[in-house]
């Protein structure tokens, strides 16, 4: 079974530039999560999808962050414009319905200069 796929793995951009991350969850996993992980900290939830519906986006900074999950499979997370403080690892995870354990992708390390 293929795991959660994310791309790109690394991204370096200048501040004020846009950036997008892509995630393909494990087949059959209806729930998809985007997390941000700063150095030395645990992952922080940005948004959670149940199929194509964003059911929890309370932690997503909506002035610059947006996300979508068309057709309830792949998802993209966008930042526009990026700020220096957005430098972090962005993790995507998915889970089976009714099971809390999440399967994480390798993450995208974003560096904003």
């Amino acid at each position: 079974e293929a795991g959660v796929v994310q791309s790109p793995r690394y991204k370096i951009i200048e501040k004020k530039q846009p950036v997008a991350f892509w995630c393909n969850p494990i087949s059959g996993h209806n729930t998809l999560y985007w997390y941000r992980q700063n150095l030395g900290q645990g992952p922080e939830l940005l948004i959670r999808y149940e199929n194509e519906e964003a059911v929890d986006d309370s932690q997503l900074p909506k002035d610059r962050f947006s996300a979508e999950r068309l057709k309830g499979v792949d998802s993209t997370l966008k930042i526009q414009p990026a700020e220096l403080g957005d430098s972090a690892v962005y993790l995507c995870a998915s889970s089976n319905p009714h099971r809390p354990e999440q399967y994480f992708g390798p993450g995208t390390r974003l560096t904003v200069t």
Partner: protein
Amino acid sequence: EDKVVQSPLSLVVHEGDTVTLNCSYEVTNFRSLLWYKQEKKAPTFLFMLTSSGIEKKSGRLSSILDKKELSSILNITATQTGDSAIYLCAVEAVWGYGQNFVFGPGTRLSVLP
């Protein structure tokens, strides 16, 4: 505000030692506690605990939950260099619209040969 605390934040041991990692939480509407191992980027699932006093075991790793004390421990016996990683504790809280996960900062374990 939901909160997960882990201790110690960092630990250095030698191969063969036994270690105990701690996780405590303050969460509204607790449902489960999960342990993850993070080596490079992607956290990988270890255990899910929902009931107090029932030990989960996998090889040299074991974990138990104490809902009265709002805490959990993760034990690793006969440590190996391959156990070097960040161990994350996450707590699942249930809300009206679904669930949320709060991660602790992790314990960085270094096992020296």
